[in-house]
């Protein structure tokens, strides 16, 4: 099982690397726009993975991961804008900054559980855009106007388009981060993390330093999401407080739940979904309005809500959970 899944992962990675090279062959299918769209999915997947590490694997609740995303994005943006740091160097910087912020936030969060932790993280997500606009930070953050950046340029004279390069860059970061997460979860520390999620009291009596694990997990989770933020700053080439409203955090949560809580594959699916659901809601709306000729003024937002509920109905454990169940059923039927 483990060996075969490894093969699968490798296969998908090889495929992911090869696809952009097909651009000259199928210019309309593998367009720059599509590659850009996939890059945003990758970025979302990384952000959802960060949240998953905290919620799915450590049992801590967060409604405010948009805050870490924002901190990552601004760290990258400020370094590029003020200090002319190259974009790739801002990724580790964002990771470090977000780790520290996450770790520090994890300290008071230790005392909070369930809904209270949700409130605390929610508050964080609310506070960050306000802090970005704070009078004394305006020089750094650009205040309400934000910071306009340059898109990453293709290095070494490689014969790639900007979007192809961005795609490869995001893909590389994602592979490294998922590999890291998989190893972490397979290690002793990873098992301790999950033990804390499953049996808090037991983990405590087993001699696991639950406080340390919980705060460090908070830090790592924040760092992952922060890296995603930094990548998004590179991809969008613009940061502003309006990009990091509370709905961003909620979208991560949707990605997490719909993808699959506590599943690495689920994070990828969640990232894809997070980007797709909006677009599909819009196309679906257009389809219903124009092709089915609905007399009523249906909004894409309504369709979005209906889609969400429908997905939870069909797959209460998320897409990853749903796939797993389908797989088991198939095998069961064959056996």
């Amino acid at each position, binding site marked *: 099982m483990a060996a075969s899944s490894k093969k699968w992962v490798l296969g998908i990675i090889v495929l992911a690397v090869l696809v952009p090279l097909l651009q000259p062959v199928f210019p309309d299918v593998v367009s720059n726009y599509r590659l850009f769209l996939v890059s945003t999915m990758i970025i979302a997947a990384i952000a959802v993975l960060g949240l998953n590490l905290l919620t799915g694997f450590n049992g801590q609740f967060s409604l405010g991961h948009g805050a870490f995303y924002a901190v990552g994005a601004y760290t990258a943006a400020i370094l590029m804008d003020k200090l002319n740091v190259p974009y790739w160097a801002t990724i580790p910087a964002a990771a470090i900054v977000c780790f520290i912020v996450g770790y520090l936030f994890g300290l008071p969060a230790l*005392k909070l559980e369930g809904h209270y932790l949700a*409130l605390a993280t929610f508050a964080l997500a609310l506070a960050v855009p306000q802090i970005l606009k704070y009078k004394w930070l305006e020089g750094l953050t650009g205040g309400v106007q934000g910071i306009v950046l340059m898109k990453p340029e293709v290095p070494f004279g490689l014969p790639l388009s900007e979007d192809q390069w961005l795609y490869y860059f995001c893909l590389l970061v994602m592979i490294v981060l998922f590999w890291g997460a998989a190893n972490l979860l397979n290690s002793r520390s990873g098992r301790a993390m999950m033990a804390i999620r499953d049996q808090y009291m037991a983990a405590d009596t087993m001699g696991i330093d639950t406080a340390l694990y919980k705060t460090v997990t908070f830090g790592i989770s924040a760092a992952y999401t922060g890296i995603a933020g930094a990548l998004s700053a590179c991809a969008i080439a613009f940061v502003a407080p309006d990009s990091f409203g509370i709905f961003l955090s909620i979208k991560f*949560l949707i990605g997490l*739940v719909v993808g699959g809580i506590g599943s690495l594959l689920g994070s990828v699916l969640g990232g894809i979904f997070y980007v797709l659901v909006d677009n599909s809601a819009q196309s679906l709306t257009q389809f219903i309005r124009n092709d089915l000729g609905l007399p009523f003024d249906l*909004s894409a937002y309504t369709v979005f809500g209906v889609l969400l509920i429908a997905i*939870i*109905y069909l797959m209460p*454990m998320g897409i990853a959970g749903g796939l797993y169940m389908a797989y088991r059923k198939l095998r069961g039927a064959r056996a």
Partner: protein
Amino acid sequence: MEQLLQQFASGLANGAIYACVALALVMIYVSTDHINFAQGEMAMFSTYISWQLMSWGMSFWVAFILTVMISFAMGVLIERLILRPLHNAPVLSIIVVFIGLLAIFNSMAGAFWSYLIKEFPSPFPKSEFGIAGVIGAHQLGVVLVTLIVLGLLFVFFRYTPLGLAMRAAAQNPQMARLVGVRVDWMLALGWGLAASVGAVAGIMVAHIVYLEPNMMGGILLYAFASALVGGISNPAGAVAGGFIVGILENMVAYAGNQIEKATGVYIIGNGEKLTVALIIVIFVLTVRPAGLFGRVVVRRV
């Protein structure tokens, strides 16, 4: 001094709004263990219903009572049709369903009634209510209504068999079944009650913030904080929490204002008041993890 008094009164009035919505949140929490993110939008939708009834010629209070009843039915229906089939789904999945509901209510209200802000009448006569220059008639009315709703809920839960059954169902559903309580219906009833309380909140709020599909967005955040400060399972705590958050927020702005006046240095102002208020709330929660008025309940392992 006059400013302090006015800020305090305005905080109290805002607090009443938060308290009302927080009460609705608590209603659903005690009966189903969920925090309903769609609560604000449901309340907004109810308010539109009462607006519609009034525009058809009903008087304020007739529309009010009818709306509360319609909202009750709406809450029961949502529980039976949408949440019942999902009673085994994980908490986070339910939250996603709530977000879906939020989107649907918000956009439907926009589609039916447009996004234009609408005036909403106040039932409180200006001449008899309010203290001139300090607190408006409607603001004072909202405070009173909130306290009345709280009182009614208290009597309902404390002294009626149905209220008792709801508390029992919330505390230990399996045991409640064993004494013949139809727990499923208690959940639906909880939703109905919450929707009714939300409707009251919406109708009271709408005169102050005007009626529009997004009117509850900001308020829900404050209500959420209020409910948690007070102890999420305690209705009286939620109301107290609402007043605390409302007043605290204005006091933060006031303090910042006074500091700027005295020293000329801007430290905190209106942009940061929510942040600071929330930090204080969270600080309180780390010291008293179950909220100011909540009891620590031993968790079943």
